[in-house]
């Protein structure tokens, strides 16, 4: 019984790391634009797809052959394959490349959506950007479904071993990496000049603008960082569950949004706390109550938090200004 509880907790912290990474994207955007970026769950999905694509390009013989046949200048990839797949250093390097490229490309995708879908609507009624975001989400899901595939298996890169209590290399990897990223982001926002600009913008956009902060750049940066972190979580998810699907973003997206609300939307540390809390609650609930209802639990928490404490655990209470 004790073993079971601990292994559920480990599972919960793993999920929590992913949720925290995604939740940061929601909370960053909400903090600055007061808008729920519905398309953020598709950034997570895109991250998984792009990461898998890069991974296959580096390590999959068949994929490499197919790509080189069309783009001969990529032939050097074939000779690098044994290095990437053979040695430990190559493996680490490959993971870094996969995560790096996926995060950057997804970040750019996030900036693109901001530029073309949200920026024109900045002065529109509140419903408009929300519906636009929903449209982006539907579009990206179906683009992935149509042009890539419904679901693609994701190779497990790390050895499958159990150190007891459900502690496996993949779980350690996810927990450690997400903690590092969360720490880096926290330092970035609270100590650097750009971070200060982001905080100023989220406090009062117009005053920040008058102080000489380029609001558009800050918003674009926000839409880069959020999706980039989401992409990392997307690859985690692919490695953890061994598959990427076109609709893989829906439930993690909603749950991470719940995590962001639970911690207090707009509050970075709140999102991190909320992410881990939600992961643990979900793991325990699916372990002890019913796994069929595990997705319901997040929604129930969301509804309860929104109704009784809409500011979240660490957030300030929101006073509606007229």
């Amino acid at each position, binding site marked *: 019984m004790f073993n079971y509880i601990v292994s559920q907790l480990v599972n919960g912290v793993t999920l929590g790391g992913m949720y925290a990474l995604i939740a940061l994207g929601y909370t960053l955007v909400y903090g600055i*634009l*007061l*808008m*729920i970026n519905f398309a953020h769950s598709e950034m997570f999905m895109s991250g998984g797809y792009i990461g898998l694509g890069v991974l296959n390009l580096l390590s999959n013989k068949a994929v490499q052959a197919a790509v080189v046949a069309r783009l001969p200048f990529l032939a050097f990839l074939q000779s690098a394959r044994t290095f990437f797949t053979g040695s430990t250093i190559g493996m680490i390097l490959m993971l870094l490349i996969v995560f790096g490229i996926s995060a950057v490309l997804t970040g750019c995708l996030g900036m693109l959506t901001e530029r*073309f*879908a949200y*920026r*024109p*609507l*900045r*002065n*529109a*009624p*509140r*419903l*408009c*950007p*929300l*519906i*636009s975001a*929903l*449209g*982006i*989400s*539907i*579009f*990206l*899901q*179906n*683009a992935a*479904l*149509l042009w890539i595939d419904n679901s693609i298996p994701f190779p497990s890169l790390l050895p499958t071993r159990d150190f007891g209590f459900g502690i496996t290399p993949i779980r350690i990897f996810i927990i450690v990496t997400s903690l590092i990223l969360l720490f880096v982001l926290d330092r970035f926002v609270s100590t650097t000049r750009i971070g200060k600009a982001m905080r100023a913008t989220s406090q*009062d*956009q*117009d005053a920040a*603008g*008058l102080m000489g902060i*380029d*609001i*558009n750049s800050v*918003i674009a940066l926000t839409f880069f960082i959020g999706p980039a972190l989401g992409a990392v979580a997307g690859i985690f998810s692919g490695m953890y569950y061994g598959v990427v699907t076109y609709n893989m973003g*829906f439930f993690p997206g*909603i749950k991470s*949004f719940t995590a962001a*609300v639970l911690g207090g939307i707009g509050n970075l540390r709140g999102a991190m706390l909320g992410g881990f809390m939600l992961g643990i609650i979900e793991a325990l609930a699916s372990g002890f109550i*019913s796994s*069929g*209802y595990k*997705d*319901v639990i997040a*929604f*129930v928490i*969301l*509804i309860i938090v*929104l*109704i009784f404490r*809409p500011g979240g655990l660490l957030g300030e209470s929101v006073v*509606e*200004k*007229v």
Partner: protein
Amino acid sequence: MTTERDNINSEAPSLAADLLPAAKPMFKKQRGSKTSPLKVILLVILALALIAAPIIFQGFGQLLLIRIFAIVGLYIILAMGLNIVVGYAGLLDFGRMAFYAFGAYAAMLIGVPLAQALGPQLGGWAYVVSLVGGAIVSSLVGFLLSLPVMRLRGDYLAIVTLGFGEIVRICLQNNFLGLSNGAQGLPRTGQTLPAPPGLDWLKMNVYFPINDRFVIEFSSNVYWYYIILILLVVAIIVVRRQDNSRLGRSWAALREDEVAAAAMGVNTTRAKTWAFVLGALWGGVAGATFSYFQMVASPETFNFFNSVLVLAIVVIGGMGSIPGVIVGALAIQGIPEFIRWFAQNFLSGAASGIDKTVSNYRNLILGLLMVVMMAIRPAGLIPSKRIKREIHGAGGSDGSTRVEGDVLVNGVPAGIEGATPGGGEGA
């Protein structure tokens, strides 16, 4: 309280007129509703065409076409319900399928045992009871949902309704309380749905061969087409009248500015509750009819994407506009189905595979269309006059009515506001 209307109509300078500056000419127009003879003739032709269509399609054996029209009709009813919530009252609902599901499952749970109790003679009337029952259950759920979410702001409301929709679907899938029969849905194996009243009689007695290729006859598809058409006409009349009523005006005030509406004496709680209840009502009516028409209610129908589809119908057609909703449903639900029907009937071989591609691309285009519409035509294809005025507004200060940022922003001289990169309010 007739004074409010009198004030507006007599053009007396009143606070209510300030709240809805554009309302004056609109109410006048409705008072003296003169419809041109051309419009009447067109309407009569349209009505005759709609009445004759299923008989003609049946005669030519195009059953699929009748079903397409019936489904589009159901989606129009569903979207009209959502239109009350989103279009009139300005409350976002991303979980519309929950009410559809309550209507469908309630109809099943009421109809199947009732038909057995009534016996073969009267069993058909179980549909009518189910329809009313589905509508009542669904409205009740709408009422119950409205209680906790009353104070939530627009985007939070959207997420909560989304969550509600998913909770309902997952509970149905997991055979909640043993009622919903899990993923298989209702009716359970061995149980059958009663035929609706009069269907058997009509099937037996309507048979007029015109020639050896064309026969006027009745089938269950034709029957449901007419039922849905009648429900649709009722829905249009009722919803139109509601929009023009005192309640409709308080919805408009609520949509434009909740705080100002409350300050002007609009009972916002009451207006919101009614929006939820009446919106849910049409969801229940459509759901009950859907389950009898399809003869099954299974959880997969009520997924999030279908909720989005209904929302897209309202948004793309035109929020708060009944013709808009009809056009939206025809465009979004109708056109892809027509293409599929065309492909099945007139294309062969490789080209007939088009129908799968069509439904895939439909969703892709739908997403893109939602984005593009918000950017270039946020009021929809056929905008409601009132909403169009709200969105495009009179002058730049219009944003102050809904943006929750500081009013000060709008008080700042335009020159300074322009100096801000992006120049936007924080919303």
